C-alpha cells in the first residue's frame, strides 16, 4: 500500500482548493451561472476567458430549456406516443447536455488544464454549481 501512495502522489497534482460558481436566479428558474469572476482564480486565469466560458455555458443551457416550436412539437409527439418515443431517441435537453459535456472537456484541455485548473460539468453537481478545482502549482505534476 505504501507503494501505491507514492505512485499516486507522483501522478496526481494536489488539490489546493475549489471554487464554486453559484447559480444566478435573477432570470427565474432557468439554468444560469453567475459570471462574476472569483478572486481565487485571478492569478491563474484571464477574467475575459472565464466569462466567455461561463457565458457559453449559460447560452447552451438556455438553448436546452428554450420554449419554442421545436420543443412543443417534441412534447406533443411524446405525449401522443405515450412517451415511448424516448426509448428510441433522446430528448432535446439530453442532446444539449452532451454538447455541454463536450464543450467543457474541450475547454479543460485547451485552457484550464494548462493552468492547473479543472472545470467540473455542472450536471455532476446537480446543476447547482460550476466547480473549479485549483491544483497546486507543481513543476512535475502540472497540467494533468
Amino acid at each position, binding site marked *: *500500500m505504501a507503494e*501505491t*501512495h507514492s*505512485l*499516486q*502522489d507522483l501522478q*496526481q*497534482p*494536489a*488539490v*489546493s482548493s*475549489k471554487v*464554486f460558481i*453559484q*447559480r444566478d*436566479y*435573477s*432570470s*427565474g*428558474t432557468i439554468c444560469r451561472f453567475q459570471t462574476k469572476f472569483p478572486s481565487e482564480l485571478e492569478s491563474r486565469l484571464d477574467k475575459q476567458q472565464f466569462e466567455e466560458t461561463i457565458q457559453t455555458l449559460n447560452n447552451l443551457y438556455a438553448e*436546452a*430549456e*428554450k*420554449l419554442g416550436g421545436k*420543443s*412543443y412539437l*417534441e*412534447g*406533443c409527439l*411524446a*405525449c401522443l406516443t*405515450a*412517451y415511448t418515443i424516448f426509448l428510441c431517441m433522446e*430528448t*432535446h*435537453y*439530453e442532446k444539449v*447536455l452532451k454538447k455541454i459535456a463536450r464543450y467543457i472537456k474541450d475547454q479543460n484541455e485547451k485552457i484550464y488544464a494548462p493552468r492547473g485548473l*479543472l472545470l*467540473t460539468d455542472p*450536471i*455532476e*453537481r*446537480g*446543476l*447547482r*454549481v460550476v*466547480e473549479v*478545482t485549483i*491544483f*497546486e502549482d507543481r513543476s512535475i505534476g502540472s497540467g494533468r
Partner: protein
Amino acid sequence: MSQMHHATLDHHHHQQQQQQQQQQQPGQYNQICTRTSSCGSPAPAEGSEPPSCPAHRSRNPRRKWQVFPGRNRFYCGGRIMMARQTGVFYLTLVLILLTSGLFFTFDCPFLASNLTPAIPAVGGILFVFVMGMLFRASFSDPGVLPRATPDEAADLERQIDSAGCSRPPPRTREVLINGQTVKLKYCFTCKIFRPPRASHCSLCDNCVERFDHHCPWVGNCVGRRNYRFFYLFILSLSFLTIFIFAFVITHVILRSNRTGFLSALKDSPASVLEVVVCFFSVWSIVGLSGFHTYLISSNQTTNEDIKGSWSTKRGKDNYNPYSYGNILTNCCAALCGPLPPSLIDRRGLIQCDTPHTVSQSNGTSSNSYASTQLHSHMCDQDQCIQSTKFVLQAAATPLLHSDPVVLAPLPGKTTTLGGPCAYLAPTQPSLPSCGGDVLTLRDAAVDSHCHHHLHHHHHHHHHHFVSPEETPCTTPQGALPCPAHLHLHPQPHPPVPSPATLYDPASQDALHEDSVRGLVKLSSV
C-alpha cells in the same frame, strides 16, 4: 452493518493521526472516512478492481440509488423511484383497475352490441392512457435536487459565516426575479440554497424542484419532472370516471326499458358498484383537475397557491414573476415544455477514489476527480444515514438500550475529526444552538447532519417550519432543552469526555455510537 463498523476500528488507528493534521480542509475528512466506511474490512483486495474501493463489502459495484440519502424506494435496479409510503398508491391502482375491469366485463358487451363498439374502444384507450400517466407520475423522479457535496457545503458555510448577522439573515438570499424579490432559503438537510420554487419534502426528505405537493395517491412527490404526467393523469381519470359513470347509467336505463329496473340491476350487479365508486370519485377528481388547470394557466404551484405567495392580498404590487403573461404560453410551458433529465443519476456506478483517500492521509490532497468524490461521498451519506436510522430504531425500542453492540466500548474521537457526516466540519461551532445541555450529543463537530435525521425522523412536519434558520445569531446559549423538536444541537465547544466511555481515537463510527449514547440518555430522561 455493525460488523463492518467494528471491523474498521483498527483500520482507523493510523488514519487518525494523519487526519488530525488535516482539520483545515473539510473535504479531506470524508475522503478518509469514505475509504474506511464504505470500503468495509481491511482486506487487501486492491489489485482486483483498480477503479473501485480496495476492499468493498460486496463483489458487485454499487449503484448510486443504493446509497441515495433521501427516503425513497427504488425498484427495478433504480429505474423506478417512489416515496416510502406506497399504501395509498395501491389503493388508487385497485380502485381504477377494479372499476374499469367491471366496466369492460359487464357493461361493455351489452353496450357494444346494443349501441356501438366504439364505446369499449374509447374506454380502452382512456384506460390505457390513465394507467400510463399514473405509472409515469408515480415512478419517475419528480425533480429531486442532489445534496451538496461536502466541499460545496463547507464553502457555503464559510460564506454564511463571513456574512455574519447581517440583513438579510445569513441563511437566506434575496434575488430579484422579474421585478419581484424572492427569498431563497438554505436547506439544512441538503446543505444548499434552494432554487426558487423548490421545496423540501419532509416525507421524502429531498429538495424537489418546482415542488407542487406530495401526492399519496400517486405515491410520489409532484415536481418539475412529473407535474405534466400528474396533470394528465387526473385529467384523463376525470374523463374516464365520467365516461364510465355515463355509460353504466345508460346501460342500466336501456336494460330497465326492456326488463324493468330491479331485474336490470339483478342482471348486472357490478353496475351498482361502478356507479357508487364513480359518483364519489367524480367530485374530487374533477375538482382537482379544475384546480390544477387553474394553477397551470397561472403558472403557480400548489405550494405557492396555498401559501398565497403571489396573491394580491399580500400587497398591491405582488404578482407572479414566473408567469409568461398569457394562459396559452403558461399551459404550453407546463405541459409541452422540454423535460429536464434526472439530476440524481440513479443508475450510475459508485466509484470510490482509493488512491486519493490514501494519499490524503499523508497530507497531500483530497481527490482529484470531482465525480468520484461525489460518488464516495454518497457512500458516506449512506453509512451515516443507515447507521443513524439503525440507531434511531434502536433507541426507540426500550429493549435495545442494553444492546451490547450499541453501547460497546464506545470509541471516542477528537471533536475536530470530521467523521462521515462532517459536511460542516470546521465551522460547526457557529451553528445557532438552543443550548440543550441535557440532550446534546457528545461531538460538536459532526452532529448536525445526523441531527437532521433525528429531527426528521421524529418531526417530519416541523422541519419545514421550525428550522434553525429561524433562530438567528441571537439565540441564547443557555441550557434550555428543546424537547419539542428534539433539537439535539451541538455545544459550541467540545465537552469533556465522559469517564464512562473509552476513547479510542480511531473510529469514524464513534459518531454513530455517540448518537446512540445521546439517544439513550434522551430516552432515559
